């Protein structure tokens, strides 16, 4: 492979890989605390993109019940500058976080308080996901919506540089994705590793009963975890929506599934694992030769099968079989 192609693929891989990592962290947080997979995470991802789009554009003019409603007849205050667009992204992610909390209340808590099998909570969250996705379709239709190119103001759409004779292009959006992901991971790592709240969260993840004995409200931390998880998912959804367009209510499904591959590859419940898994899958996808690009999505799941055969605890996971 030529150096320029290698660098191009590397850039693409890191960008998409860091989105996968951010998204997968949402799964990891919930899994650490409750030991279950939140199948509505992909729907929250989707909602994040739609929420931000609502703030930045204010209308869904193609189809759906909300067709014809324009929130900002004089133009959205969130469009036109990078700072305002960034604010819209954060607000969209917060709204996604709020929905995640709602999902916890409606889909997970009732199961838990009745002592139901964890599997039932999984099915419950799947149901919620379907409801959300269909609700989106009902309200705004299934058409693709693209963020207007001037939404983040006067920004160069891409950087390009030459390696040898070939040109390597890095879209600004990709740089932003990478930067946002890095910042997010650093903040998360700091909060979880070094703050009182983070230590309490780890305590709840390790042993909810022990945490209760220390005066930690397990309930409140479950809420915090779901909000964080939804925030990350919504943020990832907005980043993807900005980079590739909001491709209909089902565009989160593939990400939802790939996110599962990411966390199994990285190691269930491991935060560094989610990051490693995300980057590995992102890079692997980016290096798929052009002629097979239609099969790109299969890469994640092929890796999933391989890791389950070779090292089921994942790259950075602990041994599944504990020594007694």
């Amino acid at each position, binding site marked *: 492979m030529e150096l320029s192609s290698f660098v191009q693929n590397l850039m693409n891989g890191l960008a998409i890989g860091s989105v996968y990592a951010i998204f997968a962290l949402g799964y990891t947080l919930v899994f650490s605390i409750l030991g279950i997979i939140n199948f509505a995470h992909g729907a929250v991802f989707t909602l994040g993109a739609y929420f931000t789009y609502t703030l930045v554009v204010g209308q869904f003019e193609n189809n759906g019940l909300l067709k014809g409603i324009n929130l900002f007849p004089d133009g959205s205050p969130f469009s036109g500058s990078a700072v305002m667009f960034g604010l819209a992204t954060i607000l969209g992610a917060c709204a996604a976080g709020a929905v995640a909390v709602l999902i916890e209340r409606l889909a997970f808590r009732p199961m838990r308080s009745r002592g139901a099998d964890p599997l039932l909570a999984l099915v419950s969250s799947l149901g919620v996901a379907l409801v959300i996705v269909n609700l989106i379709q009902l309200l705004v239709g299934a058409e693709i919506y693209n963020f207007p190119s001037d939404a983040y103001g006067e920004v160069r759409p891409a950087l390009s540089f030459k390696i040898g004779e070939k040109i390597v292009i890095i879209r600004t959006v990709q740089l932003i994705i990478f930067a946002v992901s890095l910042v997010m991971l650093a903040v998360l790592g700091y909060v979880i590793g070094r703050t*009182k709240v983070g230590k309490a969260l*780890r*305590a709840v993840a390790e042993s909810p*009963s*022990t945490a*209760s*004995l220390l*005066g*930690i409200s*397990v309930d409140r931390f479950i809420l915090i975890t779901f909000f964080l998880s939804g925030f990350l998912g919504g943020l990832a959804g907005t980043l993807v929506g900005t980079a590739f367009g909001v491709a209909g209510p089902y565009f989160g499904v593939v990400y939802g599934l790939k996110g599962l591959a990411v966390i199994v590859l990285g190691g269930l419940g491991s935060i560094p694992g989610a990051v490693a898994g995300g980057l590995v899958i992102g890079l692997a996808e980016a290096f798929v030769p052009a002629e097979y690009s239609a099969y790109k999505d299969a890469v994640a799941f092929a890796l999933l099968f391989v890791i389950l055969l070779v090292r089921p605890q994942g790259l950075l996971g602990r041994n599944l079989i504990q020594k007694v």
Partner: protein
Amino acid sequence: MTDSKAPLLSIENLSVNYGAIQAVRDLSVAVNEGEVVTLIGANGAGKTTTLRAVSRLLKPVAGRITFMGRDITRLPADEAVKLGIAQSPEGRQVLARQSVQDNLELGGYTRSNAEVKIDIDRMYGRFPRLGERRSQMAGTLSGGEQQMLAIARALMSRPKLLLLDEPSLGLAPIIVREIFDIIRELNAQGVTILLVEQNARLAMQSSHRTYVLDAGQLTLQGNSAELVNDERVLQAYLGG
């Protein structure tokens, strides 16, 4: 105003189930301020269940728990800590993947950072071995050190009532003696203690009053000094 004669902790007609099994049935126990009270009994007698109910990890199906004059029967577990109840649970339950320092900090979760800092230094003074290992992961400590950590962690919330669940479990006799010296000292400093122990002799030697549980029900109670010579207790629990 609390009546100075009213017990600090009052358990009345407590019944707790594990699913369909009645683990504790119609139990009444009182702990007065300044006392060490012990619950003894065989495995499965309901001792741990009782402590878990007091710490509000379990919901009673009947009965009442009163602490400092307040009905706490339905109180959430984290609020019980804020009221002044702390437990060193069965099996120590140190947070293995966090450091000794972190464990102690989390023990002081309900208190201010400044207070926690002062108290942690005090804990290291009282338990130098913990101080030596403050950055170590709690899971790598020996059994005796973990028990010390569990007790120190419980003390971090400055509890009015300290619940100790089987502090001697799995520890060598010399370490057990050390732990019980600590218990005695704590009580001398004014900490009220409800102690659950399988080691009946040691428990009765270290406490003012004893309650004996059998299959979830109270069978005997009385002053420890008297009960330790009681025929029934001798036969059932003291190997004589």
